[in-house]
């Protein structure tokens, strides 16, 4: 991994395994009805049970739907590194993780015009911004053929 872990922090705690060479999103599975959600939470939005367990989600999945964010989002809340001059449209989508859930994510790709429903995607954890002198890493999904 290119970044030194000591000077790096995740964008938020508890979203994904970190540090890890096989990063996984952390969801929760309801011990009553079996529903999986992301991010992990201590109650189930489907059946209201408070018996949930944190689990690692599948790393690969299929693009269920997407869009291409065509304008620089408002700050706050956006913290991305772009300026109006350097901004390039980026992909956002939902990745269907087999038998688990569909997770909303930023998409890392060299060519947003090639995004297509059904394409195979894999989770990556990469540098996103600098905050308080530290590199902040975030999760993204990337088309498998760009790995």
């Amino acid at each position, binding site marked *: 991994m290119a970044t030194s872990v000591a000077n790096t922090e995740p964008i938020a705690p508890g979203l994904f395994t970190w540090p890890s060479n096989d990063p996984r999103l952390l969801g929760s599975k309801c011990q009553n009805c079996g529903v999986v959600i992301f991010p992990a939470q201590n109650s189930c939005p489907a059946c209201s049970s408070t018996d949930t367990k944190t689990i690692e989600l599948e790393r690969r999945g299929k693009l269920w739907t997407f*869009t291409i964010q*065509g304008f620089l989002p408002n700050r706050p809340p956006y913290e991305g590194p772009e300026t109006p001059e350097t901004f390039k449209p980026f992909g956002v989508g939902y990745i269907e993780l087999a038998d688990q859930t569909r997770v909303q994510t930023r998409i890392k790709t060299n060519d947003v015009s090639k995004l297509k429903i059904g394409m195979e995607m894999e989770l990556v954890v990469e540098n996103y911004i600098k905050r308080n002198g530290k590199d902040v890493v975030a999760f993204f999904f990337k088309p498998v053929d760009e790995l």
Partner: protein
Amino acid sequence: MDVAIIGLGIHPFGRTDGVTGLEQGAYAARKALEDAGLDWSDMQFAYGGSAAAGNADALVSKLGLTGLQFINVANGCATGGSALQSAYMAIQSGMFDIGMAVGFDKHPRGAFTVNPEASGLGKWYGDIGMALTPQFFSMKIQRYMHDFGVTNDALVRVAVKNYQNGELNPNAWRKKAFTYEEVATSDMVCDPLRKYMFCSPAEGGCAMILCSAEKARQITRKPVFLKAVSVKTRNFGSFEVFTQAQALNRADSPTVRASKAAFEFAGIGPEDIKVAQLQDTESGAEIMHMSENGFCKDGEQEKWLREGHTEINGKLPVNTDGGCLANGEPIGASGLRQVHEIALQLRGDAGKRQVPNNPKTGYTHVYGAPGLSGVTILSR
């Protein structure tokens, strides 16, 4: 007990520099009172909402400190619909027999700024660039087009129709029709939706006077009755704005559920509706809401649009005042504007955009973050 709408008031939507949101609300309230031939002191209660222009109950300092019960309503994009529903329940309960639902707003230019934490989301969700409502609408229609074969042509046609209707509405913001080409080649905002397919946050005010059906006949010759009002929030599994993870099993949307409940309560069906307002935050929303509200099957929308069924002279005119696309979206007032338009149409007072053949029954539908819908059925 039936509840009647006996007074309608609106402040033009769009941009009114130098006039506060509150003043626009007061203007609409005075217009509604004038329309009903009543005074503010006749109001026993009011429900009001504004998302970005202050507390609605500050209206009393403009309209008069009469001591009435005034309750502020805040329910996202469905704020206006929720104010109306609250007023409806207040009369139905028998506690009051006449009062007002009012809403106004004045939003800064550009997309809505969202505070993810206020919606129960992590701060990171906004940091990373996903707390944007246009993304949701785009992703929902993208999947819908994939599943049901709807094409860009339908997205363009909705926008062209709504701006054409806006041209006929003196209170609309966008009073200029766009050509098919202009819409189809406008800047891409969030694929597949382009600039002229989106509504924008705006300004405006809307108010209406409600009373018991019994009282209505004494006050006006043209009452419009609320046959059903229904507000529903999302079920687990429906695909809604700001959903970090969606269930694999899709549930009915709150629109489907609010619509079914309203039709059941009114004892009629979609085929009985002669004019409708369907939330058109963007073109795709109007298309999906046509079927979610039961007016056509999934995938039939493109044919409907090509054949002009939702135009003013069609079999089910939709968004006859130009909808959100031509009026913009001042959150507190938007849902009330929809009801205002249908009530005008049923009274035969819609001017150049009047639907022909004296429509008797109409329908309104508002949808908003974080996944709630409000439906009303109106008749005269």
